[in-house]
């Protein structure tokens, strides 16, 4: 995080992150999206100059950055409850044991190597509301056919980027009648993403299905500008 703030060239990536850190002002000018380009350059150089030459300015900047980060953590909550994350070694803190009786509402298993047998553990969570299985390499159609026990509580499911999920597995999601948000974008094994999305939307009428970038198949005319990849996908 510290590296993102320093250095002129990386300011572009910071702009994408900026919307998360809304309402922050101060000498960082992290709400950079609002400040016009020319002004920013001059102030940045001034700050940079000061930081390079005075240790105290560097320390002050570091302290303010930490404050910003803790505010961001406060914002990154699942409906007002904090995510319980592992530390840098992948271990969970021992205080986790105190939560044994508390029902689990959301599980983020993105990039996790969970497989068909491993889903046994998730299916025991009778009050699970949100499940994210993004980019899981072993989640396939057989695994999706196991998800029906979560039908009463599951409202949000994300399968974006799973390489083995095809339209045949998506048919099993019919059992999840309480589903309100479904993400089926970027599934390479689906043969016809547009048609599949239509069929899934018909199958789950109460669910908002996020999937296909409708502009993908279209050819751009000579007068149209190429699309900015950072702009939101028209749902």
């Amino acid at each position, binding site marked *: 995080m510290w590296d993102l703030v320093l250095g002129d060239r990386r300011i572009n990536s910071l702009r994408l992150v900026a919307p998360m850190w809304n309402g922050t002002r101060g000498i960082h000018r992290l709400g950079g999206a609002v400040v016009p380009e020319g002004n920013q350059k001059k102030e940045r150089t001034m700050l940079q100059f000061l930081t390079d030459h005075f240790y105290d300015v560097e320390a002050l900047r570091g302290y303010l950055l930490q404050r910003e980060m803790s505010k961001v953590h406060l914002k990154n909550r699942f409906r007002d409850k904090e995510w319980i994350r592992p530390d840098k070694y992948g271990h969970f803190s021992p205080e986790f044991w105190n939560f044994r009786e508390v029902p689990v509402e959301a599980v983020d298993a993105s990039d996790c190597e969970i497989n068909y047998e491993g889903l046994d553990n998730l299916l025991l969570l009778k009050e699970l509301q949100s499940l994210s299985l993004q980019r899981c390499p072993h989640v396939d159609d057989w695994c999706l056919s196991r998800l*029906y026990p979560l039908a009463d509580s599951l409202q949000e499911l994300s399968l974006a980027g799973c390489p083995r999920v095809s339209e*045949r597995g998506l048919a099993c999601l019919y*059992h999840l009648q309480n589903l309100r948000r479904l993400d089926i974008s970027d599934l390479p094994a689906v043969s016809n993403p547009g048609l599949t999305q239509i069929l899934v939307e018909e199958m789950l009428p109460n669910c908002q299905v996020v999937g296909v970038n409708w502009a993908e198949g279209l050819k751009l005319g000579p007068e149209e500008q190429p699309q900015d990849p950072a702009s939101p996908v028209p749902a």
Partner: protein
Amino acid sequence: MIRRVLLHGLGRGLLTRRPGTRRGGFSLDWDGKVSEIKKKIKSILPGTPRDLLPDTSHLPPEHSDVVIVGGGVLGLSVAYWLKKLENRQGGMRVLVVERDHTYSQASTGLSVGGICQQFSLPENIQLSLFSASFLRNINEYLAVTNAPPLDLQFNPSGYLLLASEKDAAAMESNVKVQKQEGAKVCLMSPDQLRNKFPWINTEGVALASYGMENEGWFDPWCLLHGLRQKLASMGVFFCQGEVTRFVTSSQCMLTTNDEMVTLKSIHEVHVKMDHSLEYQPVECAIVINAAGAWSAQIAALAGIGKGPPGTLQGTKLPVEPRKRYVYVWHCPQGPGLETPLVADTSGAYFRREGLGSNYLGGRSPTEEEEPDPANLEVDHDFFQEKVWPHLALRVPAFETLKVQTAWAGYYDYNTFDQNGVVGPHPLVVNMYFATGFSGHGLQQAPGVGRAVAEMILEGSFQTIDLSPFLFNRFYLGEKTQENNIM
């Protein structure tokens, strides 16, 4: 003197194989080397006869431990498990003899490809459950180096069986047995059915059973191809030819009741080539009858059923080919992506095919309506009169549909009790059966293959006990009836 004896003994063993016959794995490019040698000999001696070193690569080997008659999914499954469970790698030579390498009439390729656990017999349920886990982990079972992983195109959409008033009690007890065996099936009332699938007309339906997991349909060609590929890599021999004769040797023995019994054992199989009188006698130790719809002919060749009726010698193998039609139609307003394979109270069934509002299905004819199994011609009137009315009644959207194509295939129909025949014959001691599954052979093939391999290698069934499926029941008259047949 000793040298002469040794040469004589060795000579019989080594030189009986004609030069040019393929041993399989003798050296790389053996066929190329042989053709080079032939060219050299021809150039040196221009007057040599054409068949100096005849090409016999199309013939099966002269000796084989196991000969499997029939190269469909059941035969290949038995071959796979024999090779997988053998104690020594390369310890058994297995030969698969298939009459038609295009599989144009084989039941495997023409099958609808469904798999379900909704049977009444616990053994059938266990076989299906094992097959589901086999298909799920197919890339671990059938992995071949440098070959791409198999994609079975499995649709886990489940089976929905509908029952009328008179069948409801049977369905309830069946579902109880299925749940006990570990199948994930649930019962639904007509109201629940209407809620779940609004496109169904529940008139006449008293109860429905819906399989939630491990049920659906897949591509049988992919399984066939995967098995063939894996077997080739495991060193199984394939031969395209027809079995025309078994040479047996008999032994008369006395039973404990002092009755004379003639036990036969097959020691040679004659495999005849296509469009030719050429045949190859293959010496064998075990023969497996996996010939599907034509199993009865193979059994008759071994003398099964040749005897006074009512005796064990006179008990024929009651498997005969029955023709079944499958129709593909297009219906744009039909049921959506979630549609399971629906089996109606009348016996008509249908399922979705692909993303484009295409459906396929059919119906088993009654005994009086049985079509002539002499060929695989499709009777389109059968659809108009016997299938469509039931479909349109059950799913009103199917009142407007357009038939795109149709095909016919054979069931290896067991006329006795519509269940498979597995295991050895009591009198022809080295013929094992793996046939007669009457329409659910494909979905039980992995389990049955394993059972037959266990029977051969260990002497008894180890994992799933298929004793109710032995041949003896035809003589004893004990039916192992399966109630849920489509």
